[in-house]
C-alpha cells in the first residue's frame, strides 16, 4: 500500500494481464509486483514467450493491465483512457526498440523531433532540443543523415536521442541490442550506463544474460511470473 506521505516513483501491484483464448482465459502476466526507484537501471530478463513484451507494453503505457495497480511518477496509470495514455507516453516514457523504428524518409534530426511535435513544442525549440540530444549520443555530425545512411549502432543512437528528447522519467528499451553486432551492442550498453550515471531511470528488457548484466538490478520473468534475480558477472 502506498503511504500518504510519499508517492512511489514506480510501483506495480498485483498486475495481471491475460487474453481470451477461445472459451478460456490465458493469463500472460500473473500478479506482477515491481517497485523501481528513481535512477535505477533495471533489467527484465526472461526467455522468449515469458511475457516480457506484454510487461513492457504495460510499463510503457501502450496497454492497460487486466487488473492490478500501476503508479508511475506518482500517478495511477492502470485506468487511463487512450488520450491520457498518449500524453503519459509522450512525457514519461522514452521508448527504444529492437528494430530502432526510425522513419525512413526523415533525417536523424526530424526523427528525434517526432515526440517533441506531439509534446507541442515550437519548431525552433524542437530543433534545438533535437540537436542537443543528437550531440549527447555523439551524432552531432550526422544531423541530416537519413536512417539508411547510418550504421545500425548509429541508428540506435538516433533512437536513443529520440527517447531522451522529451526528458521522460523512464527509458524503456526492448532488446535494444537485439539487432546489433556484439561490439556495437557493447557501445550502446556503455551509453546506457552513462545515461544511468547521469541519473536516468532505465528499464531494459532482454533475454540475454550478458546484456542484462549491464544493469544495476535484474528481475527474472518466467511464464508471466516475476522474481528478483541476482546480478551475475558477465
Amino acid at each position, binding site marked *: 500500500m502506498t503511504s500518504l506521505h510519499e508517492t512511489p516513483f514506480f510501483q506495480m501491484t498485483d498486475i495481471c494481464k491475460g487474453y481470451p483464448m477461445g472459451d478460456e482465459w490465458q493469463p500472460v502476466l500473473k500478479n506482477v509486483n515491481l517497485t523501481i526507484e528513481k535512477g535505477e537501471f533495471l533489467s527484465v530478463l526472461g526467455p522468449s514467450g515469458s511475457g516480457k513484451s506484454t510487461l513492457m507494453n504495460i510499463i510503457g503505457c501502450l*496497454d492497460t493491465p487486466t487488473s492490478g495497480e500501476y503508479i508511475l511518477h506518482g500517478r495511477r496509470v492502470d485506468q487511463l483512457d487512450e488520450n491520457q495514455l*498518449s500524453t503519459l*507516453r509522450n512525457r514519461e516514457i522514452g521508448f527504444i526498440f529492437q528494430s530502432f*523504428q526510425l522513419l525512413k524518409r526523415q533525417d536523424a534530426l526530424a526523427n528525434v523531433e517526432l515526440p517533441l511535435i*506531439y509534446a507541442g513544442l515550437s519548431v525552433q525549440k524542437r530543433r534545438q532540443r533535437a540537436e542537443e540530444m543528437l550531440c549527447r549520443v555523439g551524432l552531432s555530425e550526422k544531423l541530416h543523415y537519413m536512417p539508411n545512411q547510418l550504421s545500425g549502432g548509429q541508428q540506435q543512437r538516433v533512437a536513443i536521442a529520440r527517447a531522451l528528447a522529451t526528458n521522460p522519467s523512464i527509458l524503456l528499451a526492448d532488446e535494444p541490442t537485439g539487432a546489433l553486432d556484439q561490439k556495437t551492442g557493447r557501445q550502446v550498453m556503455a551509453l546506457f550506463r552513462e545515461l544511468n550515471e547521469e541519473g536516468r531511470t532505465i528499464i531494459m528488457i532482454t533475454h540475454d544474460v550478458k546484456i542484462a548484466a549491464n544493469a544495476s538490478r535484474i528481475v527474472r520473468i518466467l511464464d508471466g511470473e516475476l522474481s528478483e534475480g541476482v546480478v551475475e558477472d558477465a
Partner: protein
Amino acid sequence: MLKESLRMSLGNIRANKMRSFLTILGIIIGVMAIIALITVMESATGEVTAQFESLGTGKLTVQAGGTPLKQGLRETDLRRIEQLDNVSGISPSLSQNISVVWQGQLLEDVTVKGNGYAYFRKNPTAVEKGRPLVPVDFDQYSRVCLIDSELAHELFSGVDPLGQQLLVKGTRFTIVGLLADPDVDDVMSQMQAMGEDGSLMMPYTTYMRLFGVKGVTGLEVYVSDSDRTNDTVEALEALLDECFNYHDGSYSVINMEGLLDVMDTMMSLMTNLLVGIASIALLVGGIGIMNMMLVSVTERTSEIGLRKALGAKPRSIQIQFLMESVILSLLGGIVGVALGLLVSKLLSNLMNIAFVFSPGAVALGVGFSLAVGVIFGWAPARKASNLNPIDALRSV
C-alpha cells in the same frame, strides 16, 4: 498541430509523387469535366440568349394569316392593337421590291418597307441622319421616307439626300432621314431580304394606302413593361379573336421571352444532366483516393504505431490522414479547375462563342473535390487512428 499535420501530409504526398498523381487523376478529370461543361454551357446559353434577344425581347411577333374572308389585319385593327394597354407601338412587316425614280434616274430593285414608329423608338440608333418616323406621319399618311446608305449611294453621290423627293409608284416622297447601316450581329436585319439597290422605309399607313394593302399578315407588337407581357399577350389574343371572328388558326402570337424561358430551362436541365454524369467521374476519383489512403494506412502501420507510442493522440493521426486525402483531392480539384477553364476557353474559341468565366463553376469544382477528400478520406483516417500501437509496432 494542424500545421504539423499539413507538413507531414505534404511530405508524404511528395514522397509518393507518381502514385499521388495517378490517384488524383480521377478527381482532375471529374472536376475538369464539370468546369468545362458548366462553362461551355453557360457560354453557349449566353450566346443563344443574346441571339434571341437580338431577335427581340419585349416584343411579340404576330402571324395573322386570317380567314378566307379576311386575309390579314386591316389598318383599323392595327390601330386598335396600338391602343392596347402596355403596347408601346407596332411594326407591321410590309415590304416589296419595286422601282424608284429620282430626277429621271431609275433604280429597279429597291426594297420598300412600311414600318411603325415604334421601330424607331426601339432602335434609337436606326437613324443616322435626319429624323425618324413619328406618330403624326402615320395619322396623316405623310409621304415621307428614310433611305439606307446603299440607296443613298446609288442615287445621290455627292448630293445631300435629305429633303430630296423620290417617286415611288408615281407618288412623291420626301426623304427625311438616313438609316444607319445595320449591326452585323443583328440577326433580324440580316434575315430581311434586301433589294439589290438598297431599301426605303415609310409609315405603314402610307404604305397600305399607296399599295392598296387591305390586310397585314405579319407584325411586331412592342411591349413597354416586359413583366406584364403575359397579360398583354392575352389582351392581344382577345383582340385578334375578335378581329377574325374567333376563327381557329387564323393567327398566332409568338412571345420571344417565353421561348427564352423555355430555352433557359432546357439549358439548365442539360447542364444538370451533364454535371451529374461528370460527378460519376468524381465519385470514381473519390474511390481512388480512398483506395490509395487505405493502402497508405496499411503501408504505414508501423509508422502510425510508432507515432502513437511517441505520444500521438488518435485525433492527431486522424487529422493527418484526413488532411492528406483532402490535400490530394483539393490538388486534383485545383488542377481540374485550371484544365477545365483552359478546355472551355479552347472549346468556346472553336465553337466561336464568347467565353464566360463562371465563378460558380469554380466554386462547385473546388467544393466538390474538398467534399470528396473529406468523405473518402474519413474511413481510412479513422482506421489509422484506431490502430493499436502494440499491433502496429509488431507488424515490422
